[in-house]
C-alpha cells in the first residue's frame, strides 16, 4: 500500500470504523486512520466530549463533518477521557494532513484492557481495508 491515504503504521491497533489506538500502559491515544480520513474527506468540523467523560466501545463520542456530511465518532475502546486535542477541534483539517501524528483526537484511560484483543494489528487491518475497497469496486455500477 504505497498510497499515502492507505498508510497503516505498525505498532498501532485498528478497528473496523477506521480508528487507530496507540496503547501506552493503561492509557491510549485515539485517532482516525489514513484510510478513514480519506473516506470522510476534507474535515470541517469536529465536536468532542469533554475530558472526564466516559466513552464506551461502539458508542458515539462526538461528531465530525466533511463535504456537508455529519458523521458520528464511534469509540473503538472504553475509557475515561483524559485529554482532547484542542488544536484539532479548532482546526480539524489537521486530521487529513497528519492522521497518525498531530491529528490525534483524544487520549483516554482504558477501562478494559481485554477490549484491545478485539482490535486488529496493522497487517490484519491493511488486509481488511483492501477487501473493503475491492468489494466497493465490484459494487460500482450496481446502481
Amino acid at each position, binding site marked *: 500500500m504505497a498510497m499515502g491515504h492507505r498508510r497503516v503504521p505498525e505498532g498501532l491497533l485498528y478497528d473496523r470504523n477506521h480508528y487507530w489506538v496507540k496503547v501506552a500502559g493503561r492509557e491510549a491515544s485515539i485517532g482516525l486512520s489514513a484510510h478513514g480520513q480519506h*473516506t*470522510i*474527506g*476534507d474535515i*470541517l*468540523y469536529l*465536536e468532542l466530549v469533554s475530558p472526564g467523560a466516559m466513552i464506551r466501545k461502539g458508542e458515539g463520542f462526538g*461528531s465530525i*463533518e*466533511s*463535504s*456537508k*456530511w*455529519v*458523521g*458520528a465518532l464511534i469509540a473503538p475502546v472504553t475509557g475515561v477521557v483524559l485529554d482532547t486535542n484542542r488544536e484539532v*477541534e*479548532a*482546526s*480539524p*483539517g489537521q486530521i487529513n494532513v497528519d492522521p497518525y501524528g498531530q491529528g490525534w483526537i483524544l487520549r483516554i484511560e482504558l477501562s478494559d484492557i481485554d477490549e484491545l484483543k478485539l482490535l486488529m494489528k496493522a497487517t490484519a487491518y491493511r488486509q481488511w481495508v483492501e477487501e*473493503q475497497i475491492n468489494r*466497493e469496486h465490484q*459494487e*460500482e*455500477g*450496481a*446502481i
Partner: protein
Amino acid sequence: MKMVWRFLDTGPLPAANNMALDKVILNSLRCGQASNTLRFLEFSPPCALVGYHQAVELEVEEEYCHQQGIEINRRITGGGNLYLDEGQIGWEIFAHKETRGIPRNSEDMCRLMCEGVVIGLAKLGVEARFRPKNEIEVQGRKISGAGGTEMGNAFLYQGTLLIDFDVDTMIKCLKLPINKFDDQQIQTFRRRVICLREILGNLPPIPVIKRSLADGFAESFKIHLEPGDLTQNEKLLWEKELPRFQSEEWIRGKRPKLQGSSLSVVDWKTRGGFIRVSVLLDPTRHRIKSAVITGDFLAHPESSILDLEAAIKDSSSHPSDILKTLRHFFAVNHIRISGVEPEDFHQALCLAISKAGDGQGQPLEDAGRMEAKFP
C-alpha cells in the same frame, strides 16, 4: 427484481417538525423498523436553517427573521445556512449504508444522491448538472444543495429544490459573503441562484414536479417507490422528539466558541481587468466559509467563476493551500481568462483573508473595500 422503497410526501410543516421527523425516520431505519425511504418535505412558515455544526448567530439575521415571522432551526445534517419558504420542495433519501451500490466515500455518495434530482429535472426539460462539492446547477447557477448525516448503519441525505424562490428575502435573512448595502453585489448574488420558475417561465403543477423528481430517484437508484405512511412507532417518537427540536438548546447549541465569521471585500487589478473578491472567513478555523468573485474580465467557460466559488467554499485559508486549489482548478477545468492568472485570484483572496483575519474584517453590513493594483 427492483428493490422497493417507501415514498413519503409529508406536506408543509414547521421547521422543528421537519427536523424532528428527520431524526425519527433515520432512527427507525437504524432499528430495522422501516425500509429505505424517499421523503418530500415542505416548510410553512418560512424558515432559516443552519447546518448541524453551525452557529445561528454567525449565519442568520435573527432580528429580521423575528420581525418577518421566519422560523430558525438547526438541521441534523451538515452544510451551510439556507432559507426556505412555502414554494420550495425538500428531498430526502433515508437508506441503509449497506444498500447495494451506495458509495462509502461521502463525496461520491453526494454525487449519487444528486443524480436523482438531475434526472428528475431532465424530465421537466431542464438540463442540470452536479457541481462539487454538494450542489446542482442550471446554467451555472445553483438550484439545489445537499447535505447528509448518519445514525448507526443508516444514513440520511437531503437537499432542496428551488421552485419559485424569493431571493431578496434570502439575502435579508441569511449572513452571506456580500455587502448588503452594495447594490452591485446584491445583483451579483441574485445571479448565483436560479429557480424552476425562472427557467421554465410557467411552472408545472407541484405534483408534476414531485412526480418527475420521484421518477428521477427511482431511475437513479433502480428502485420501485411505494407510497406509504409513517409507522405508528414513528408517529409516537415524532411527538416525543418534537419539544427538543423546538428548544433553544437545540437551535443554538454551544458552537460559537470555536468559530468566527468575518467579511472583507477586495479589488485587485490585473492585465485582464479587475477582480473583486468578497470573502466570508472563519478566522478561528482558518477556513474560507464562502466567497463571491466578480470583475470585468472574460472567463471561459462562462460558468467557471461560479464553479471556482464552489471549489473554494469551506476550503483552507492558508495561502499555500489556496494556491494549490486554484492551480488544480484551473488545470482540471481548462479555464482561460485573458490577462488573468490563477496567481491573481490567489493574491486577491490572500489580501481579503489577511484583511478579515487581522481583525480588519468588519461586521457584514459595514464591510468596506480595499483596493490593490497589479504592479
